[in-house]
């Protein structure tokens, strides 16, 4: 009974608070309202966009790794094996995977690439060489999955009837973007399109011509040398048809986990490691992703503090300049709670309106703009990561902050002496 009475009183306070807030907002100075909403929009964007870009910086790398390297499903040899067991059988199963769009099977080896190999070295001069992962591909098939052709930085793409051509990853070549050298770090210097380089695998050497350089902004791609599969097989001295990696591109809408489970249940799980693109992410990417998510949350927290201070100031200035108004309300018997609630409603109105406009800006304009024109960071094409659920969560946080930031200044002003407020003394 007592509880019901209390609830009724609070409900009535909320009703009167809403009545006052609606009219205050309706009759407030239009430009002041626009300014406050404008501030709230930027506060919202600060919360969502700044952390979204930070996370998007890494998400760009994650997506690039998927698009340029692993595909939707990545099959690779077990760590203790040189290649995928029963490679031919595995490929046959892959070809019958439901929802398959394309696949590319690669062989890999490690070797050494030497430029200027005909040059006579001076005493103590090191050869212009670099250790690299060598990848044998069928160029057309590779391009269908990873669009490698579009990652060509200089020169041209590899063709299947080019036994002497290679593509060199940009990270292997010394250029203005190469990080400061440190002991042990090497990169090929003075290598241009059309130059001959010597590739060494064990005791086998072969001269190749650099057809192009690749910059995919994926370390696994940019630190590799690509050549025709048949040539690498020859250099490795094997006639067996084996593969080390198979990248699978699924049709749009096909679930990666379902496709992976289908492959595993087909029995090839015993021959190779089968991973979705997320599982196949390099560990450092996963770590950076977590790190940037923490950073993003930290920046969001600062954004929330800025938002709460903004709302606090807005409400405090509003309340303090209307001290007499509040005094009159108290004088005629309007409860403190109803007056405070009216200010909370007002601050919520500004926050909700700012958030709605902010969400429209983010999802209708900013996010599509980032997708169409990613930020060209040196190591990734940065996009804006803003999911609806994540954004709504931030809106919820903003609302909670708003309620607190609206409540405190209103309470400070409402607690002042009624008569002094009415008489303006």
């Amino acid at each position, binding site marked *: 009974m007592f509880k019901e009475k209390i609830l009724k009183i609070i409900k009535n306070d909320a009703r009167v608070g809403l009545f006052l807030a609606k009219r205050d907002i309706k009759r407030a100075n239009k430009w002041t309202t626009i300014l406050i909403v404008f501030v709230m929009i930027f506060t919202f964007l600060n919360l969502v966009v700044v952390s979204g870009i930070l996370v998007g910086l890494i998400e760009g790398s994650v997506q690039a790794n998927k698009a340029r390297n692993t595909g939707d499903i990545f099959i690779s040899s077990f760590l203790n094996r040189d290649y995928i067991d029963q490679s031919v059988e595995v490929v046959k199963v892959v070809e019958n995977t439901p929802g398959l769009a394309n696949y590319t099977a690669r062989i890999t080896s490690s070797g050494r690439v030497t430029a200027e190999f005909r040059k006579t070295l001076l005493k103590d001069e090191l050869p212009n060489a670099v250790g690299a992962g060598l990848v044998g591909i069928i160029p057309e098939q590779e391009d269908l999955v990873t669009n490698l052709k579009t990652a060509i930085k200089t020169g041209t793409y590899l063709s299947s009837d080019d036994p002497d051509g290679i593509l060199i990853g940009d990270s292997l070549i010394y250029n203005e973007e190469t990080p400061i050298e440190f002991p042990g770090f090497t990169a090929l210097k003075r290598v241009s399109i059309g130059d001959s380089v010597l590739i060494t695998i064990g005791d086998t050497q072969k001269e190749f011509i650099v057809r192009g350089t690749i910059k995919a902004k994926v370390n696994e791609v940019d630190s590799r040398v690509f050549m025709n599969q048949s040539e690498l097989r020859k250099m490795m001295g094997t006639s067996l048809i084996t593969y080390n990696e198979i990248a699978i591109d699924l049709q749009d809408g096909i679930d990666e986990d379902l496709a992976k489970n289908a492959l595993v249940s087909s029995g090839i799980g015993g021959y190779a490691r089968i991973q979705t693109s997320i599982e196949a992410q390099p560990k450092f990417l996963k770590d950076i992703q977590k790190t940037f998510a923490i950073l993003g949350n930290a920046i969001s927290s600062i954004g929330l503090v800025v938002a709460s201070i903004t709302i606090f100031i807005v409400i405090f200035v509003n309340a303090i300049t209307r001290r007499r108004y509040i005094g009159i309300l*108290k004088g005629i018997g309007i409860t403190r709670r109803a007056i405070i609630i009216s200010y909370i409603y007002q601050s919520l109105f500004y926050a909700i309106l700012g958030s709605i406009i902010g969400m429209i800006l983010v999802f209708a304009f900013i996010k599509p703009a980032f997708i169409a024109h990613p930020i060209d960071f040196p190591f990734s094409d940065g996009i804006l990561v803003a999911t609806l659920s994540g954004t709504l969560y931030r809106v919820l946080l903003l609302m909670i902050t708003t309620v607190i930031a609206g409540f405190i200044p209103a309470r400070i002003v409402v607690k002042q002496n*009624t008569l002094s407020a009415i008489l303006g003394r």
Partner: protein
Amino acid sequence: MIQIKNLAKIFENGDSPIRALDDVSFTIPDGQFLTVSGKSGSGKSTLLYQLGLLDTPTDGQIIIDDINTESLDENQKSSMRLKNLGYIFQDYAILPSLTAFENVMVPLLMLGLDDKQAENKTIEALTKVGLEDRMHNLPSQLSGGQQQRVSIARAISHNPKVLFADEPTANLDTETSKNIIDLFLKLNHEGQTIIMVTHEVEYAHMSDRTIFLVDGKIVSDITNKIA
């Protein structure tokens, strides 16, 4: 009935405190039209604020209908003001962002009336003060006299036990002032207890009783007519 016993209000002013009210005692029966008069600084407004529970006296008691207001906390005083008291201020004290209608309606909503009941009572009060055709105007669109009428409508809308008016005609022209006083007399004839602060002798004589204050003390308590 309101009983005032040994009421005192002292304002601290450095080493020389000001006794705005000094041992004031009197009783106001229900339905009386009481005017409080005196020179500027005599303590008449201070008295009104104490009686209206807008301020807390330094000493003494105010008993309204057997309730000793000394024992009430801020929320209870607020509730008492809402339910039993009505105020009319010299400078109207109406809310500038609300229309005449909304100004009158707010306390009615606070009393817990539903929208329809509150609207009906608002229309009734505004009609009583002759503002039925200006109900939806903002205060800035009303004359001083009309604003004071809004203030009166707001004060009487919930049928308070006591109506307090602090120099309600001070800012109005003679004609408008007379209309306001006529309205008070009409309300008083309907049984409304009114306590009005005024320095205009003519209006004081129209009330049932007049108390004169000098330096916070009652120097005369005159019955103008038989109630």
